[in-house]
């Protein structure tokens, strides 16, 4: 750094600083009790995974682990020649490799540092795509790996080979993929992070910080309190008193300080506010944000799903031209064609599959004033008639031929192995549509406790504490209200300002709904109406009032724990038929089957 405030240390000082360095080493070891614990969690792995920097370790135990895992997609063996790309999805992030040469044994050696936490997403989905120049890239095989399990298993080799499965039926193997995963030593994480930080303000590259350089760094953290205490922090950091802060000393300061009073409130790279829950999480987050890859074939990130990562140049062109964006949340216009949902089980984002033509027609009908005029001039009646006609068709014997095509289109979203009967059992498409599941296919949470409510359907769920929140974040139809939803016969005052939970069933979902609570069915109220789509394209549109204008049946359940609960089953275009399996006065248990939706008006 710049000339320090003191001259260079003389010989006698040299001895004392060596002694203090020794003490300091002991001090560090004693002081970082958590480091011993982490040491117990880790053990040195044999050798090194491909070209990764720093020491790589295997996890001995995964409880309350939080750290950086280095995942490398090494190679694959497929059953035919093509140009291949692979994607890794973990939580809300997806990364992809470069495209391989034309081969059946692609080699990528592509690595990525991933944030791994016990209570965060730790099941990674690896998907392999065959690439095409004009048409879109197709997923050929996938596998799901619990990285924490992978890291704790006892294996000498750093590489593991996993089978890749056909998305349409997970018992057909379509290839193999070889990958390695190791954990970066958290001490190494802290050091490499300090090294990255130090290099930013070490203007004369002597590998240590003078007071003025240190001050610039503290200022860069944007923390005013810390900025006012620069001298104090500098003295605290400069343990050997040589007037400079070395990389180790900076690492210690950041680690210890972050625990006591955070130096860094938000990440200087992505701006995310950093909770002070665990200092290692902060350092890990910052390391990943600062990380520019280790020079090896680092994967390309910034995608939300593997589907987005696999899009070719056409989609990129449309995104670049801002025709459509690919994002979470309320989407309008062409961005509405990519509906992303968060899979609660895998903690990963999933893109909902909808036929492009259907999206175009829904956008035209529900997201514009023209659509509104069309509705008023007869489109409603047409939608109703189409649904009734579709119901008759789906109840015919010929409709059974559509079942395999339907299963193929939603290939990795319908699990045939949990359906009670084999496909051949279903005589019509509607029979398949209201298929039952095998007993135990849907375990009921806390089944013995009636004060715990459960999800009523396999669906995409939105939950709000009250009506205002639902209007703010989701339902944009101008006429929506609790009174409007429950109809005239039911007094809304019981439910005003109550919580609202929306279970939206997509075509591929299991279409029977169950009781969310135990209690007695007080009454059923039929409310005739239209059959608009319940797709978010309509629900998020101000031109359409799906939930107060669609055909629906309201049932009131009296419960000991929640008071009264209104259960509103709402029909939709094509799937307008609502059937109940219980009647007024019945006592029901949460998790019992309540009824189902099927094709028809």
């Amino acid at each position: 750094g710049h000339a320090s405030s003191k001259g260079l240390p003389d010989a006698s000082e040299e001895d004392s600083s060596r002694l203090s360095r020794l003490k300091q080493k002991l001090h560090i070891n004693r002081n970082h009790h958590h480091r011993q614990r982490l040491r117990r969690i880790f053990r040195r792995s044999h050798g090194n995974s491909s070209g990764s920097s720093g020491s790589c370790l295997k996890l001995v135990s995964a409880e309350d682990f939080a750290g950086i895992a280095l995942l490398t997609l090494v190679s694959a063996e497929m059953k035919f020649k093509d140009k291949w790309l692979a994607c890794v999805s973990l939580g809300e992030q997806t990364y992809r490799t470069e495209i391989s040469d034309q081969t059946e044994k692609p080699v990528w050696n592509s690595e990525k540092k991933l944030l791994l936490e016990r209570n965060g997403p730790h099941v990674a989905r690896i998907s392999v795509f065959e690439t095409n120049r004009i048409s879109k890239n197709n997923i050929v095989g996938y596998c799901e790996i619990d990285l924490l399990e992978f890291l704790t298993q006892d294996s000498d080799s750093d590489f593991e080979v996993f089978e890749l499965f056909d998305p349409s039926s997970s018992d057909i193997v379509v290839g193999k993929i070889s990958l390695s995963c190791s954990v970066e030593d958290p001490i190494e994480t802290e050091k490499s992070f300090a090294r990255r930080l130090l290099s930013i303000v070490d203007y004369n590259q002597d590998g240590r910080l003078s007071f003025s350089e240190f001050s610039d760094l503290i200022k860069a953290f944007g923390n005013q309190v810390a900025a006012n205490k620069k001298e104090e922090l500098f003295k605290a950091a400069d343990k050997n008193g040589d007037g400079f802060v070395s990389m180790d000393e900076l690492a210690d300061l950041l680690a210890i300080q972050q625990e006591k009073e955070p130096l860094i409130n938000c990440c200087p790279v992505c701006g995310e506010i950093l909770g002070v829950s665990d200092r290692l999480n902060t350092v890990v987050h910052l390391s990943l944000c600062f990380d520019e890859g280790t020079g090896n074939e680092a994967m390309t990130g910034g995608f939300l799903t593997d589907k987005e990562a696999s899009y070719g140049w056409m989609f990129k062109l449309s995104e670049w031209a801002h025709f459509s964006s690919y994002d979470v949340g309320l989407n309008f216009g062409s961005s509405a064609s990519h509906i992303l949902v968060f899979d609660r089980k895998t903690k990963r984002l999933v893109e909902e599959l909808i036929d492009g033509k259907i999206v175009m027609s829904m956008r035209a009908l529900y997201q514009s004033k023209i659509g509104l005029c069309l509705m008023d001039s007869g489109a409603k009646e047409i939608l109703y008639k189409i649904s009734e006609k579709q119901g008759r068709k789906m109840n015919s014997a010929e409709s059974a031929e559509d079942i395999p095509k339907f299963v193929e289109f939603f290939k990795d979203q319908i699990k045939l192995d949990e359906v009670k009967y084999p496909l051949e059992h279903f005589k019509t498409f509607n029979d398949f549509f209201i298929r039952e599941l095998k007993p135990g296919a849907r375990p009921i949470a806390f089944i013995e406790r009636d004060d715990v409510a459960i999800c009523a359907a396999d669906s995409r769920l939105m939950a709000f504490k009250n009506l205002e929140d639902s209007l703010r974040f989701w339902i944009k139809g101008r006429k929506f209200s609790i009174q409007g939803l429950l109809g005239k016969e039911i007094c809304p005052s019981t439910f005003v300002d109550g919580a609202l939970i929306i279970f939206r069933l997509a075509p591929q979902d299991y279409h029977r709904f169950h009781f969310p609570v135990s209690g007695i069915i007080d009454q059923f109220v039929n409310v005739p109406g239209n059959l608009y789509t319940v797709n978010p394209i309509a629900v998020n549109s101000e031109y359409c009032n799906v939930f107060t204008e669609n055909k629906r049946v309201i049932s009131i359940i009296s419960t000991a724990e929640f008071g009264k609960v209104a259960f509103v089953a709402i029909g939709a275009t094509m799937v307008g038929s609502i059937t109940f399996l219980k009647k007024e006065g019945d006592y029901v248990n949460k998790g019992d089957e309540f009824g189902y939706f099927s094709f028809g008006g």
Partner: protein
Amino acid sequence: STVICVFEKDSILIDEDLLANSARSLETLVSVGMKLGVATRKQSEIDLPNLENCVLE
């Protein structure tokens, strides 16, 4: 098709992860039987008079 459940005011504590996703206008993929929330108070406690506070005249 859609099911909407409406609860009485303050009768349920919905799971935090579901509320957090909904506050980002992000739907959560759930299955039948997954935990939704917990009753905030036993309805019976509300209905029954609170005898402890009664005093004999």
